[in-house]
C-alpha cells in the first residue's frame, strides 16, 4: 500500500469511465450483505420475543 492510484477524488470516482461499473457493483453488493445481516438479526429478536411471550 504505497501510493494512491488516483490523483484526485473525482478521478477516483470516475475511474476513467469505469467508475459506474465498479461503484455500482460494490455499493449494491454491500447493500445486499448489510440487508442480510439486519434481516437475520431482526428475525432473531422476533423469535426470542415470541418464545419469551409463549413461556409467559
Amino acid at each position, binding site marked *: *500500500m*504505497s*501510493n*494512491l*492510484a*488516483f490523483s484526485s477524488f473525482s478521478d*477516483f470516482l470516475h*475511474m*476513467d*469511465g*469505469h*467508475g459506474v*461499473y*465498479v461503484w*455500482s*457493483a*460494490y455499493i*449494491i*453488493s454491500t447493500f*445486499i*450483505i448489510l440487508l*442480510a*445481516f439486519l434481516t*437475520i*438479526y431482526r*428475525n*432473531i429478536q422476533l*423469535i*426470542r420475543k*415470541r*418464545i*419469551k411471550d*409463549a*413461556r409467559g
Partner: protein
Amino acid sequence: MFSSFVHRFSSPKSYVEITRKFFPYISLFGFLLLLIGWIWGLAFAPEDAVQGNSYRIIYLHVPASIFAQLVYFFMSICALIHLVWRVKLAAYLIKSAALVGAMITFIALFSGSIWGIPTWGTWWQWDARITSTLILFIMYLGIITLHGSFSNLEKADRLMSILVVVGVVNIPIIKKSVDWWSTLHQSASITISDGTSIDPSMLYPLLISIFGMGLTLISLGILSSKFYILTREKNKKWVQSYV
C-alpha cells in the same frame, strides 16, 4: 466412541453458546479485513494494463465466487455427517448455510455481469463457468425450497442432505470449467503447484479481501444458524432458559 464424541460436541445448545462467544471477534475482524482489502484494492492497487480500472471489481467478484463454492462444500460435509451419524446440528447448519450460499452466489453472478459489460462487451454469456455457477445458485434455492416443502422436518433434513451430496458434482465442474471448455473466463491465476502470476501489489489486497469476506460470511452464517436453531428447538428446555 467416536460417534459419542460427535454427539456430545454437536448439541445445538453448546453450538449456540460457543459461537455466541466468538461472534463479536469474527464479525469485527471480518468487516475490518474486508474494508482494508477493498480500500487497498480500490484506491491504492495499481491500474491494470489491459482492463484499466474495471478490474477493481476483482476484489469483490473473486472472494464472492470462491465462497459461493466453499459454502456448498461446507454444506456437503455437513450432509455426510447428518446422513452417517444422524447429527441434527449438521442438518440445521445446511439449512442456514444455504441462505448465505444463495446470497453470495447471487453477488458473484451480479458482480461478474457488471464486470463483463466494460471488459467483454456483454453482461451475460452461456459461458461454461457462468452457467455452472447459475446452476449452483438454483441449487441453493432448490435446497431451501425442498426443505420448506415437507411438514415432517426429520424427513426434510434427510432428503435435503441427500440432495446436497448429489449436487456436489457441480463444484469440480465449476472449478474445472475454464480448463475443460473454451470460456470467456481465464484459467486460474493462483495455483498451489505453480504459485501465482499476480503481482504482489494486486495480490495482497485480494488475499485480504478473500479472508475478510470469509469471516464476514462465517459471522452471517452464525446468525443465520442461531435463528434457525431457536426456531427449530423453540419448545426445548434449553431454548426456554436461553432466551
